[in-house]
């Protein structure tokens, strides 16, 4: 038996597993020169054959951004980012305009094959459509660096009236929708990173579900940063018209590089009367090495507007990657009786830092929100939940329930909970519960005495801790998320 002075020694080994998605793809890239100025923005806009209004919109965002400074209120520490030392446009050279799957560079398909998660996406990206009735297929939009490279199942979706395409294409094909909704939830000047994104975003997914339509399959976008010294600035816009339903999944990985890469995405969701949007993310950007070298800076603005009565927006996220995560998927509950949900698992190991949470803004009457946040910290990482629940004066009968749990693995990591509650309506009810626990030595010993290895024991305990969130994920995604949790924590015990 081991007589280590630290009875929790088993818990420390789970973090030393190398990142499995850290390969790079050797592919000819079309890159803009480094730096950010109006000319670069004009170049991006020209490369994408954009209309004048969008270029103006970008330039306005750039002007706003120049007057802003990066937020410093988060519990995050990193050296200053030189925004002039990045490429703001990088695209696989062969890609000009929308691609059909057959036209995709085989190198790219091979890359998505290697990524392996989610498995069904890989199969579909490889062109294998599941047999009839086998299981509900998933439509995939794959974004490689700045450009969408493949969107699958478009014909099936079109039959249902659902539009699912790269946003650059939507700008050309559905300008009335894009113009109406782009920036309507996250305005250009919303925050530093959103302004930057609005100026330079290069691609992302666009979804429109018409009134009364239940989207016939899960929609999914797979994001991959490949090129060196590039930022990825994708923009996603999802509109669920009255009485419609859509479930959208998002996965992300990046190569293993010594320098930090910037990812500043914006996601806007709009739900009209009785519409529902379920948005699930499994974020596995490269987290950096054990000493904190490299990794993605993930500064993301995600916000949904429940504009219609009885509409519902549900965010589920499993965050295991990135050196730094700054992300608060939020809901603006404007429609009466609208519902916002936020289910989150954030895992940090080694030197990772995460400051994540949500904002629930109750505006309409009898609006309801639920927040379940599970933070897991290991190694020397820092994990902060930051959440705002704001009840506006007209939100009579509004309800919020917040459950925030932190699990510490080892004794050199940190967990912080920062809830902000502002209620301006006396009929509202807001509840907040928070717990912090450690994977206890007695729990590990109990499991091991029953025959489980240390790692299986940690996985079992962690999965139990996250169960309320994982059950919100679509089933196959939940299985992948469980595996990802296991891999992320591998070696943090021991």
């Amino acid at each position: 038996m081991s007589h280590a002075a630290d009875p929790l020694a088993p818990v420390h080994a789970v973090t030393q597993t190398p990142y499995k998605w850290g390969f790079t793809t050797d592919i000819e890239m079309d890159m803009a020169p480094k730096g950010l100025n109006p000319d670069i923005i004009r170049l991006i806009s020209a490369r994408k054959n954009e209309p004048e209004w969008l270029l103006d919109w970008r330039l306005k965002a750039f002007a706003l951004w120049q007057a802003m400074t990066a937020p410093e209120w988060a519990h995050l520490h990193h050296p200053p980012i030189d925004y002039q030392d990045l490429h703001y446009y990088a695209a696989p050279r062969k890609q000009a305009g929308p691609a059909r799957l057959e036209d995709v560079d085989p190198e790219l398909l091979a890359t998505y094959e290697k990524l392996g998660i989610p498995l069904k996406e890989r199969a579909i990206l490889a062109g294998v459509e599941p047999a009839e009735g086998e299981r509900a297929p998933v439509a995939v939009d794959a974004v490689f660096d700045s450009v969408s490279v493949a969107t699958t199942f478009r014909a099936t979706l079109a039959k249902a009236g659902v539009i699912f395409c790269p946003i650059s294409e939507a700008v050309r094909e559905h300008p009335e929708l894009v113009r109406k909704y782009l920036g309507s939830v996250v305005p250009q000047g919303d925050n530093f990173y959103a302004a930057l994104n609005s100026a330079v975003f290069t691609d992302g997914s666009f979804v429109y579900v018409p009134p009364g339509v239940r989207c016939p399959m899960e929609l999914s976008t797979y994001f991959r940063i490949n090129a060196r010294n590039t930022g990825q600035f994708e923009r996603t816009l999802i509109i669920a018209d009255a009485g419609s339903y859509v479930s959208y999944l998002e996965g992300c990985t990046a190569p293993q590089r010594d320098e930090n890469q910037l990812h500043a995405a914006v996601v806007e969701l709009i739900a009209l009367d009785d519409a529902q949007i379920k948005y699930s993310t499994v974020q596995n950007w490269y987290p950096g090495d054990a000493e904190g070298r490299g990794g993605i800076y993930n500064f993301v603005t995600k916000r949904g507007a429940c504009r219609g009565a009885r509409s519902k927006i549900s965010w589920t996220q499993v965050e295991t990657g990135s050196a730094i995560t700054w992300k608060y998927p939020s809901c603006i509950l404007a429609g009466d009786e609208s519902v916002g949900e936020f289910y989150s698992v954030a895992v940090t190991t080694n030197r990772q830092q995460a400051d994540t949470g949500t904002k629930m803004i109750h505006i309409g009457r009898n609006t309801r929100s639920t927040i379940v946040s599970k933070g897991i910290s290991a190694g020397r990482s820092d994990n902060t939940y930051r959440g705002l629940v704001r009840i506006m004066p007209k939100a009579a009968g509004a309800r919020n329930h917040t459950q925030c749990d932190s699990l510490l693995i080892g004794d050199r990591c940190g967990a912080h909970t920062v809830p902000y509650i502002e209620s301006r309506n006396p009929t509202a009810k807001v509840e907040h519960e928070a717990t912090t626990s450690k994977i206890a030595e007695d729990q590990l010993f109990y499991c091991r005495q029953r025959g489980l290895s240390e790692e299986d024991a940690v996985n079992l305990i962690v999965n139990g801790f996250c169960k309320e969130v994982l059950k919100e994920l679509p089933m196959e995604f939940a299985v992948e998320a469980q595996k990802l949790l296991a891999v992320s924590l591998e070696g943090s015990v021991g």
Partner: protein
Amino acid sequence: MLEIRGLTAAVDGKPILHGIDLAVPTGEVHAIMGPNGSGKSTLSYVLAGRDGYEVTGGSATFDGEDLLAMAPEARAAAGLFLAFQYPVELPGVGNANFLRTALNALRRARGEAELDAVQFLKLARVEAKRLSMPDDMLKRNVNVGFSGGEKKRNEVLQMAILRPRLAILDETDSGLDIDALRIVADGVNALRSPQSSALVITHYQRLLDHIVPDRVHVLAGGRIVRSGGPELARVLEEGGYASVVADAA
């Protein structure tokens, strides 16, 4: 099956076991009795391999293998089971899921085929019924919100499903009412066989009315001060530990 020689152990640098000699042959049930603080729980944790229970001397072998060199899960795979005095709660972990994971880990280690969820539930329901446990206890989270008696019965259920070759019961009778005590004892007796052994650690004689041991040992001050047949338990019940401990000293 279990051979302990001159075993000494310390917790936080403080010596607790001062030289234990004990042999439990295959097919026998031995009881260890002793006053509070005599080292009973320490002995069970040392045998199961808990961190922080430092062996300072002596040996313990299990089927001739050096037990003390094995990781806790390897001891479990070899067939050692510890019924905890204070069973641990695992929030969010379903009892059935936990038990199946444990059983399959043991089966894997022994080169046996794993059981799927259906096969496992069938087995678990039979055993739960035998212990008068409602099915829903399998669905609840491991020991979370269980009463003291339910926790102890859950330990016996785990033992029934994992079928150890050597079961160590650490004060499994404490906190049980007389009906629960009988159910737990029946569970233990059902596992008695010529191939398996048990070490029953208890503070009171009453459990030994239901689980009749082959041998009784008295542990006091970190040593076994007296050993005898089942009748020794009754001597203790009448004269108290003081008589026996004083005799030995």
